[in-house]
């Protein structure tokens, strides 16, 4: 056989073997449950996998601005619709697309809420290239689980049953007052790559008939006029609504001496309660969201809200 054909077949064979081994190791590395004990990263957001199918009305996506601001159990108690915060630390828009797809695998939300801070978190082309590879081969994302592997990782199928009580909200009751104005310094520029992922989010919502709402959570650090302008332009280009909660701080009743745990970067539970109450009223006025209060199928939500909100407020 000609040497070049032999070499080409050899290379192809090596790559096929590599792919097969990647698939095998990925099966082992994939967490078999969605709790911290199972090695699942981002446990609060991962609780979406355990929610009964078709029970979540609103999905939130974004970064820490999202999971420190929006309280699904308070929305449930005050407005009666269910929601889940699928937000993760420094979530980039390519990750947002993945979370959206993951959340909507078992859910049929009536609204997607995208917190806009993710528009300003940089993505490089390497991350964009790695995205589909990580999806296909979870070993790359979960490789560090080698420290926590158990026997069942080698034979069991994934079963996500860990219910996260606070539905993705992360509770913080400390208070560290905001002191000086330190708004975001960039010019609000949303690069080509991020714009492309934003369009993917818009297309996904459109294809599935789900309204999209862009919201800017209150922050004295990650907000600026430039970001306000670019976020509203982004929403316009997607045909989505946009709400800037920073501009409504007074209406919401925020007090930046008492409602933040990190000098104005994020809201603490006191600030989150105020922001969530306002936001819940806004959603109920502008979107047709169901009221499940009184529905026996959702009694677990009553139980969770009773416990969580008693702890929180």
């Amino acid at each position, binding site marked *: 056989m000609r040497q070049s054909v032999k070499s080409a077949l050899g290379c192809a064979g090596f790559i096929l073997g590599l792919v097969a081994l990647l698939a095998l*190791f990925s099966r082992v590395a994939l967490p078999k449950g969605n709790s911290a004990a199972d090695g699942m990263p981002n446990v609060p957001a991962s609780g979406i996998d355990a929610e009964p199918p078709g029970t979540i009305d609103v999905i939130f996506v974004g970064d820490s601005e999202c999971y420190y601001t929006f309280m699904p159990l308070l929305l449930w108690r005050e407005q009666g619709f269910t929601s889940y915060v699928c937000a993760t630390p420094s979530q980039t828009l390519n990750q947002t697309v993945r979370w959206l797809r993951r959340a909507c695998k078992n859910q049929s939300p009536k609204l997607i809420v995208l917190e806009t801070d993710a528009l300003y978190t940089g993505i490089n082309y390497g991350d964009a290239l790695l995205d589909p590879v990580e999806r296909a081969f979870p070993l790359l994302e979960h490789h560090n689980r080698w420290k926590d592997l158990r026997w069942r990782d080698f034979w069991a199928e994934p079963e996500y049953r860990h219910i996260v009580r606070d539905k993705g909200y992360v509770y913080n009751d400390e208070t560290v007052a905001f002191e000086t104005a330190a708004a975001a310094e960039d010019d609000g520029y949303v690069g080509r790559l991020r714009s492309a992922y934003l369009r993917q989010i818009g297309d996904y919502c459109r294809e599935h008939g789900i309204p999209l709402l862009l919201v800017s959570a209150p922050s004295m650090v990650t907000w600026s006029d430039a970001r306000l302008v670019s976020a509203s332009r982004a929403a316009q280009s997607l045909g989505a609504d946009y709400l800037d909660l920073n501009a409504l701080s007074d209406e919401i009743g925020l007090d930046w001496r008492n409602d933040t745990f990190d000098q104005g970067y994020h809201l603490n539970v006191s600030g989150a309660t105020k922001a969530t109450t306002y936001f819940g009223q806004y959603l109920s006025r502008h979107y047709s969201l169901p009221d499940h209060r009184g529905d026996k199928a959702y009694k677990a939500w009553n139980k969770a809200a009773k416990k969580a909100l008693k702890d929180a407020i």
Partner: protein
Amino acid sequence: MALSELLFAGRSPLLVAFFSVGYLFMFLPAVALAFCLAPRRARRMVLLGASYVFYWLVSGTLIAYLLATTLSAHYFGLWLDRLLRGRDEALKALPRDQRKPLRAQWQRKIRGVVALAVVLHVGVLALVKYSGFFLGNVNALMEAVGLSLRLRIPAYLQPLGISFFTLQALSYILDVCRGTQKADDNLPRLALFIAFFPQIVEGPICRYGDTAARLWDVGPMNLDDVKLGLQRILYGAMKKVVIADRLNRMVGALFKTPDAYGGGFVALAAVCYTVQLYMDFSGSMDAVCGTAQMFGVAMPENFQRPFFARTISEFWQRWHITLGAWLRDYLFYPISTSGPMKALTLKARKRLGNHYGPLLAGAAALFLVWLCNGLWHGAGWNYIFFGMYHFALILSGSLAAPLLRAAGDRLRIDGERLPWRIARTLRTCALVVIGELFFRAETLGAGLHMFGRMVSDFSFSAKTAALRELHFDRYDAVIVLVTLAIVFAVSLVNERGASVRAWLKARPTAVRWALLYALIFYILIFGAYGHDYDAVIPLYANY
């Protein structure tokens, strides 16, 4: 949007990380594809174009420094070549006994041009890299003597790799001046030599005579070179991604807040930093040499198993070899063999004998070499201290050599026996680790403080919160030790003159594939990458 933004200027600084997705799976394959598709004579231009694209993506408009250095080296080279030819023609026309004054006149002209070239290139480097340090010290001195005047300290953006490509350009100019290299009127060839993308950020510092022709006359890619190159890149990835990047956070925490830990931890910090630095730099060199090999170009080696050295002098012949060779050839030898130094050596030999006599001139040259070595790494007193520390060790080694030899003979100690070789190697390692403690410390004061704690409070005490900051558990320790054992085994085989790569090439396909798969998955599973780790730019990319 500015045009430079539109053209992705400086948008991919992470490309300097040779094991990043951007470099390994986007940039390098794109260059390889363009190279394979290009006709023979265009391949060199593909490499040159790729090198400038690389630098543009990494450093943006600071590419102006690279272009200016290249043009400057080119025209200084031609100027010197014209002067040298003029000198030779003028001397040929004269009888032999009349040539001396004319030769001296021409030499003055040539030295003037060389001095101008050196001042220009080193001056730019000094301005961009050292002006802040120099002016800061002037201000501190003025404050100390009670003067109210303060100089404004400018902030310059430092082009990546400026310390490397400046030395490379200077070596070309100096080789032309010495007559060991003819000036090249082919600007693109010189440009490719200076800008070749794998080596521009971290070296190795190449010589024009060794590398330029190989790059310019590059042949087609062949599968063997690609396979060997990729294997070398994989081996480097194991060193950098599994060991160096895993140690990064622990080393960072220990050096940032050393007072939160006992002196034993300080010693651990120094050891771990030394390991991190070697694995990071040598791993990156594996990527550089592996990349070049893929294109059929051999790069000079920068490391020869330095931790097998038995003396500090030997260590520096095995560590960052191309920098040491540059300083030796362009600083040490010209100084130590200059007229005044030769005269000094002659006088000193009469008084101090044949061993200590030449040491005087050698010491003066060595002092300058180590001052420059320290400063080359960074603008800081800790770097100067680092250079002086090694100068003191090497000089004291040379001074003590006859006494130690005599003592060894008297006590009938055979220094070549294994226990003594191991003892000397471990001693050398310990001395290197102490030097790296100062090299890595945030300031010289911090380094001295850490050294003091290491000696006076050697304990492994630390608060639980401080231990958590290390982000390093027993599993990490096992993986680092296992990987170090692998690197040690490979190094030992190579030290004995055998070649692991040649051995691997001779194995049956099934064995080769199994070992390669094992290496790939070792890196994928145990590598320090992903959301639990911070991306670590190669450490020497900052110099």
